[in-house]
């Protein structure tokens, strides 16, 4: 993302943050797109006042893997609850109204939610948003920054099981 776009986004956020505090009427949120609302989960000022985000790669998620299960890597364990940054591809969500999506290492061929025999690969990260997004760049890499959550969690509505999650506070196109 070039600097000009970043500045525009920062400027938009500065306007948008107080709007959120004042209005809460949801009109802006209904038209939200992924890149126009970079801060959707945590307060927008967090990236500036919070800690530095630690870079994380898909290949660093698990240190051990066998047919008997996966093992979180020491690096992943050490970043639990901390701010991380990871790049990947957004997989198509089950429904456009969901406030989470799945980040994958490579673009997903099959929409596992809509296909009967497909299932997700093991190395995925679930990205939690404060609201659903509508403009979805599935074919371009994106970088997500946010707080890392680890451990089994099942989404009540969809039954979707996740192990590694990021509560996103910034999403942008990867370089």
């Amino acid at each position, binding site marked *: 993302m070039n600097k000009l776009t970043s500045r525009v986004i920062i400027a938009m956020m500065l306007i948008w943050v107080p709007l959120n505090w004042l209005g809460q009427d949801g009109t802006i949120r209904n038209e939200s797109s992924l890149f126009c609302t970079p801060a959707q989960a945590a307060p927008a000022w967090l990236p500036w006042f919070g800690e530095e985000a630690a870079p994380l790669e898909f290949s660093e998620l698990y240190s*051990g*893997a*066998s047919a008997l299960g996966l093992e979180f890597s020491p690096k992943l364990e050490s970043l639990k609850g901390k701010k991380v940054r990871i790049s990947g591809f957004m997989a198509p969500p089950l429904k456009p109204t969901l406030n989470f999506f799945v980040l994958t290492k490579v673009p997903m*061929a099959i929409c596992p939610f809509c296909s009967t*025999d497909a*299932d997700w690969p093991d190395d995925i990260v679930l990205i939690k948003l404060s609201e659903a997004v509508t403009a979805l760049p599935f074919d371009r890499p994106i970088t997500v920054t946010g707080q890392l959550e680890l451990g089994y969690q099942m989404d009540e509505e969809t039954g979707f099981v996740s192990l590694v999650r990021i509560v996103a506070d910034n999403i942008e196109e990867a370089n």
Partner: protein
Amino acid sequence: MYNPKMSVLCLSRCFRLVVALLVVASLMSGVTVSYAAYRAPEVPNINIMPIDRAKFLVGQKFDFAIEVKSDTPASAIEVLVNGKKAETFFGKQAVVKFDNMSTYRINEVAFPQTSKVTVAVTVKTEKGTEKRTVNYEVPADKIKKPAKNVILFVGDGMSLQARQMARILSKGITEGKYNDLLEMEKMSNLALITTSGNDSLVTDSANSASAYATGHKSTVNAMGVYADSTKDPFDDPKVENIIELVKRTRGMSAGIVSTANITDATPAAMLAHTRKRSEQNFIAQEMLNPLHRPDVILGGGSRHFLPKSVPGSKRSDERNIIEEFKELGYPIATNKTQLKQAGTPDKLLGLFQLDNMDVYVDREVTKNPAVLGKFTDQPTLMDMTKTAINVLSKNQKGFFLMVEGASIDKQLHAMDWQRATYDTIEMDKAVGIAKEFAKKNGDTLIIVVADHAHGASITGTYHEKDGKTGREAVRIYADAGWPTFADADGDGFPDNPNPDVTLAVQFANHPDYYENEKFLDVPTSPAIMADGKAIANTKRAPQGGDLKVGNIPASDPSEVHSADDVPLTAEGPGADYFKGIMDNTEVFHGIVRALGLDGRNEKK
């Protein structure tokens, strides 16, 4: 004889006379070709399951069910089997419910005698009565010298063309003559198998494997059942399958081997009953059910066997299916080393990947760490087949083994014919191992078949040696010459999957995708889903490639199954059954005939 004195006119008159005489003669002797008329398919209001023209092994158990669709609830459903009331015929009470979809059902029945069967159904509604008749067959075909064992190889999606690609890459061709044939081609019998299910021209792997396992048609995504109208994936009328039959009637051993998740459609259909193949957690736990518990289970997909608290599990409960198998005395192998160390126990569970096992090229040729990750010690299909045969053949009563080359299909879906072909060769080598075993005692029937086809054809060759690229570099007719694959080490696999002259393999159906005709370093999807539409994946041809505009609905991001008939080859006792064009349900009947199974028997 030509007579120069005869005029042309005279010749023509003679000819006409001869033709006229022939026509009269043929009419008188009845030598005319007549065609049976048929009607366009229609959905009857009375749905009888099993369907019309179903064929049963005598004594094979099934659930008999009828669904009647009517504007107002039906008031009576009368069912006659060969003129007798169905309840009397089967000796069981029917459960009948009247509604806009009225149902009549008698579970777990069987035909006690070989015969033709007529089922006449009469339904009374406010508007009057509606009738429907279906016919069944319970054949009496008996084999003189039965087989002790049957090994069924299913090359998933292994069309005629997929076999040929494997023959070219594995054996090579010199001056138009193949240097050799595949193991699966050097067999005594050949048949063509039609693949449609009872709902649709084009099948999926559950449906088609179910036909092989039960002798009955099913529906896309379903196995071991006739699909009824309810949403519940576990309530559909069942049909007894091959593993249940060999266990119940004879106490034989049974095994399933696959390079896919072992709960995937093809291995699952050998034992399970569900309308929904995606119920893989259910299928995993069904493998424990003594009615159809395989003695040997080897493949991928441990994620459906691990409790949900274990990272990597896809279960929604805390059941540890691996531990449950352990408690039943199954040694567990999770990699090739452990599989070798397992020796020949009486039963065996081997799960070598959380998901589908990796394909042969990635596992054994390139060994690309970016693809394999930590799974660097996976067995080959040959290893698994050999172990399965060693374990199962300990049972003196014989065994049934199904071996699936699963990723032939998965890679053809991804339009990666090279990966598919190496996996076809891998399965062929597994066939070779089975043939070696069969040679020893001569009492094993081996069947090699696909479950459906893919739209891939060999158009010629492809090279860029003269600077041409893309479609202009596809060499056709005389320009094709020969591909330059070579197998210097004689292991049956070409040394290089990406020689300077490769095959031009083109697909009849595809999504939008980029094609550069080259071997892909890592498996890469041709298209990805974006906003519900398949769009070409730019990662597919990083060096550049031609955009091929899709010719199937944009809702599907992969190449899809084709309705083409598929070849079956067979050898051993009972192989003579397989010839000509056969319905896919006949594969089951060929198996049970070869074994001389009788569904009325109960093992002692």
